[in-house]
């Protein structure tokens, strides 16, 4: 899922400092699961924005809402429910949600309340780790299911580098050297020889270096 973190409050309050009434809008998708922008976080943020504005001697009205998703046109239409009740929307969805509102509501002010961080999963309660970078050309079948693009500090295709020490990455002793783990795992699953295959120079054009990416499924379009 997409992992996000709430932005610093002074930054958020700064965005809405001229507004009189705002819609704080959560999303029931990924940001609910990673506790960044679901219904509960909406309630907390609305309260903190009101407090932040009071601190500046201003009063702001807040309306709270949470959509099933903010990355689908159908659900964005749900915003109509609060028509006329806000000057601006503070979206707690990932950046996709904010973009969708901006795309579909050309004259509505929309601000991001979270920093969209990465694709990951919860490895422990309250801990999320990046797992995939959405490179558009997956190599997990060659690397024992562990991603060298997202999880190697250098995104090496032929690791490990010379800085790998005792299974730790040279950038920090807390960071696993994923290439050591790939090596160990390939051994465990009886595919150690895969380490001898030299990966060719990679074409990164699918990884977002060639402009915004698009998927078109002819079988689904009407």
């Amino acid at each position, binding site marked *: 899922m997409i992992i996000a973190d709430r932005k610093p409050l002074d930054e958020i309050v700064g965005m809405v400092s001229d507004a009189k009434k705002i819609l704080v809008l959560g999303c029931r998708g990924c940001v609910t699961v990673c506790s960044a922008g679901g219904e509960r976080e909406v309630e907390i943020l609305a309260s903190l924005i009101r407090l932040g*504005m009071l601190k500046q001697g201003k009063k702001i009205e807040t309306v709270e809402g949470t959509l099933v998703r903010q990355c689908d046109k159908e659900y964005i239409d749900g915003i109509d429910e609060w028509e006329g009740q806000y000057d601006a929307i503070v979206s707690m969805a990932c950046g996709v949600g904010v973009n969708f509102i901006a795309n579909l509501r050309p004259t509505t002010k929309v601000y991001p309340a979270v920093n969209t961080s990465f694709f990951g999963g919860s490895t422990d309660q309250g801990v999320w780790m990046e797992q995939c970078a959405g490179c558009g050309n997956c190599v997990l079948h060659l690397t024992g299911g562990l991603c060298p693009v997202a999880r190697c500090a250098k995104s090496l295709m032929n690791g490990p580098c010379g800085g790998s020490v005792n299974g730790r990455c040279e950038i920090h002793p807390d960071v696993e050297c994923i290439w050591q783990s790939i090596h160990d795992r390939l051994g465990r699953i009886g595919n150690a020889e895969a380490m001898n295959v030299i990966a060719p120079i990679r074409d990164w054009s699918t990884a977002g270096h060639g402009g915004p990416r698009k998927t078109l499924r002819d079988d689904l379009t009407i």
Partner: protein
Amino acid sequence: MTFTPDIQAFCCHYTSQQTIAEGKKGLKDDGLPANITFHRVVCTGKLQVSTLLKAFEEGADGVYVVGCPEDKCHNVKGSQRAAKRVVAIKKALAELAVEPERIEMFHLERGFHPEFVEAAQLMNKRITDLGPCPFKGEAK
């Protein structure tokens, strides 16, 4: 001008038995400041961040939570959860440039004991020294 802070205390069932048993007068005789309003909750682990923030929105100058000792909570981890939420609010207050020490967590033994009164007195002194909460600035 003397300032009497509005302090809201949220205490669990077990640590606040004193507030029920002794009544208003008894508590005053024990030295509990009269400007502290006590809210009893079944367990501090049940307290939501939004409930504590609401206390500030409603005009509190200081807020504190009293739960069981960290390793002896009646509900195992309730007071640990409450303590984490208090830390999260401290961080949020700091981001809004408001003194984080306006909110505090206390872990106390259940039953009658002077530490319950001491916590109240400590908060009363601390918040009196800090002055009115900046959230109470005149809203335009």
